[in-house]
């Protein structure tokens, strides 16, 4: 009795399975969608974080658009392997400089001491709508971490000591998600530079020098000394704020020494060779051992 019941049950289920398999087989043949296999291959070359930094809904959407238009320049994905995508699509990929996020604020707790305490929703968007900031600098970092939440790569974190975001250069792909999330435009996506060496103005304050300096010791006061010193005309001062054009900057670091408030930061330079580097700018930017 028991064995026949099991047998019938097994046979019935097996039969249903067979019929379903046959139906599925034919349905998949009839409704087959022809998809370019290159889309999958291109997608594999993209980071897969779906950050939306390129302007498409996700990596798949960008891959589809690239394959459809056969154009690598429709959008730029900083984490994408363009060389490989070029091979797949049979187009020559232009070399692009890798980019990275830099924090244009140096209002640490020490440089810009807090005058008021913020005790509300921990989101920069809201804090920005309420008040000028704990240090009263209306252009500086609010330190609530909207950029941290926006980053899909875990590359940006708030340093609890300085209350400023810090970027992990190895993880940052320069997708601009953080720059879009920042209500004050403190974060800038810049070219990584040769050997990751960059010189930038770590300040976003467009107020007059004396006013900016009152709230923050490390503020750019728009004095223009850096612009005069720069041998490559890479520095411009607009609205009391200096800006170093990464395309023109040769990372000579003359401006760093000249800045009276220390608002210009140079990162990833070897420490002891600093004075030599300032003497001969063009050559010292590419030492072989760091390539």
């Amino acid at each position, binding site marked *: 009795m028991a064995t026949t019941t099991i047998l019938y049950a097994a046979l019935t289920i097996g039969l249903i399975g067979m019929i379903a398999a046959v139906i599925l087989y034919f349905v998949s043949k009839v409704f087959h969608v022809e998809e370019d296999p290159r889309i999958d291959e291109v997608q594999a070359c993209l980071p897969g974080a779906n950050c939306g930094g390129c302007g498409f809904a996700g990596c798949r959407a960008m891959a589809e658009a690239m394959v459809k238009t056969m154009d690598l320049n429709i959008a730029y994905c900083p984490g994408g392997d363009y060389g490989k995508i070029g091979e797949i699509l049979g187009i020559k990929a232009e070399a692009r400089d890798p980019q990275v996020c830099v924090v244009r604020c140096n209002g640490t707790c020490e440089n810009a001491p807090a005058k*008021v305490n913020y*005790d*509300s*929703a921990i*989101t920069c*968007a*809201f804090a920005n*709508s*309420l*008040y*000028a*900031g704990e240090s*009263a600098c*209306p252009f500086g970092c609010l330190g609530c971490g909207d950029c941290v939440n926006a980053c899909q790569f875990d590359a940006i974190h708030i340093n609890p000591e300085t209350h400023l975001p810090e970027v992990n250069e190895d993880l940052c792909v320069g997708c601009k998600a953080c720059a879009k999330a920042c209500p004050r435009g403190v974060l800038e996506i810049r070219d990584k530079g040769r050997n990751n060496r960059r010189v930038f103005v770590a300040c976003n304050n467009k*107020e007059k020098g004396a006013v900016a300096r009152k709230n923050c010791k490390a503020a750019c006061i728009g004095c223009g000394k850096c612009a005069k010193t720069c041998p490559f005309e890479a520095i411009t001062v607009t609205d009391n704020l200096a800006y170093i054009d990464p395309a023109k900057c040769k990372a000579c670091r003359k401006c760093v020494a000249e800045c009276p408030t220390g608002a210009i930061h140079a990162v990833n330079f070897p420490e002891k060779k600093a004075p030599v580097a300032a003497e001969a700018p063009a050559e010292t930017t590419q030492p072989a051992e760091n390539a």
Partner: protein
Amino acid sequence: MNDRIPQLAGELATEISKELKSDIRKLGKKTFNLGGVHPEANKFAHSAEVVTFPLPDQAVVYMTQHLGAPATPIVQKGDKVKVGQLIGEAQTFMCANIHSPISGTVNRIDMIADISGYKKPAIVIDREGDEWDESIDTTPDIIREIKLNKEEIIARMKDRGIVGLGGACFPTHIKYMLKPEQKCEYLIVNAAECEPYISTDNRVILERTEQCLIGIEIALIASGAEKAIIGIEDNKPRAIAALVEMCKKFTNIEVQPLRIKYPQGAEKQLIKAITGRSVPNGALPISVGCIVNNITTMYVLYQAVQKNKPIIQAYTTVSGKSLPAEQCKIFRLRIGTPIRDVLNAVGIPEDTGKIISGGPMMGKAIANLDGHIAKGMGSLLFMNEKESRRGEVHPCLRCGKCVSACPMGLQPFMLHAYAERGRFEDCENFGIMNCIECGSCSFSCPSNRPLVDFLRVGKAKTGAMIRARNAK
């Protein structure tokens, strides 16, 4: 705390004649039906008379003292100005004129930080004496007869820079510029003053009753409404009595006492309480035939029309738990007075945790004490250390208290979750644009969640999203 109670009891137990009491009882009490909370009233300054604050040596007059675009300065450095002289002109639709609050010389036109710490365009005037513009009637006589017609009144509102003094500072003349198809049936005068601590409206009513009512008569002409109803919460019995008594001299003005409930002073809630009409989502009060104005606005309207006096003064309640009872006062301040002067006059008690401009429910903590008084700055509240700290935030319990408290029938806990995660389309579907930011949700939350904070973020972002979509 105990030392404050006799003061309040004195306010409540004043001699109101029996007939008047029965008259008031006949009026009944109304309120709105949906949501609402009952914060402690703490009206410490209820019986304090309005004190005129000394003139400042230097006034900083911001060009944005209203909702909308900043006014354009029309004076230059070194110009001599008189009290009430036009110094900032409204050049766009959503804007209001700004007048000089003191007489003297223009020191400079600069960007100066306001109470939020953000720098705003402002005119700095050094005071010399107190010379008023000739066109302004400075006599204390009450002028009852209204000579201007509808158009002239609206033009005067615009010219004299009248803005709503309930807090939002909405340019008043815009409310009265009705389209031909719109008709105003009721002029609702907002004297609810539902925010705790604030007693400005109460004192203005008590000390300037007749002027307020003449102001309402002027607004009746401007709006074309048949009837004006003053909505006033019943924690101001003397003000109600004064209004009922004075209304006998006027036709078409009624007083409607309201049961205490926050946010009764919000436009839509007040209309619901008084007329029973619901303003549709996204519509203005005029869509149900109402215009709502604050009672202090009615007083300045009286001054503007009958005396040609612009808004150059602010009536500011200075109160709070950390202040000693005798220091809880109401000041008549010139616009542009440094807030520091006010703080020095009352003294900042050691226990003060923060100072708020506006009521404790909707007001904003002052981030920059070097700011200056602006139009509509109805109160400066001193919160003690304990009150000013937010409690520890716990996870949402889904208890639904915020849903019961919301006077707009929204689900604040859902909106908070969506706004926090940046899902603004969902925010829109859940009606975030109807939020009036009254703070009832945060007030009622047992988990201390910053609901209204995120609702404000969500509302701003969703509004931007909708505008961007409509612009396409």
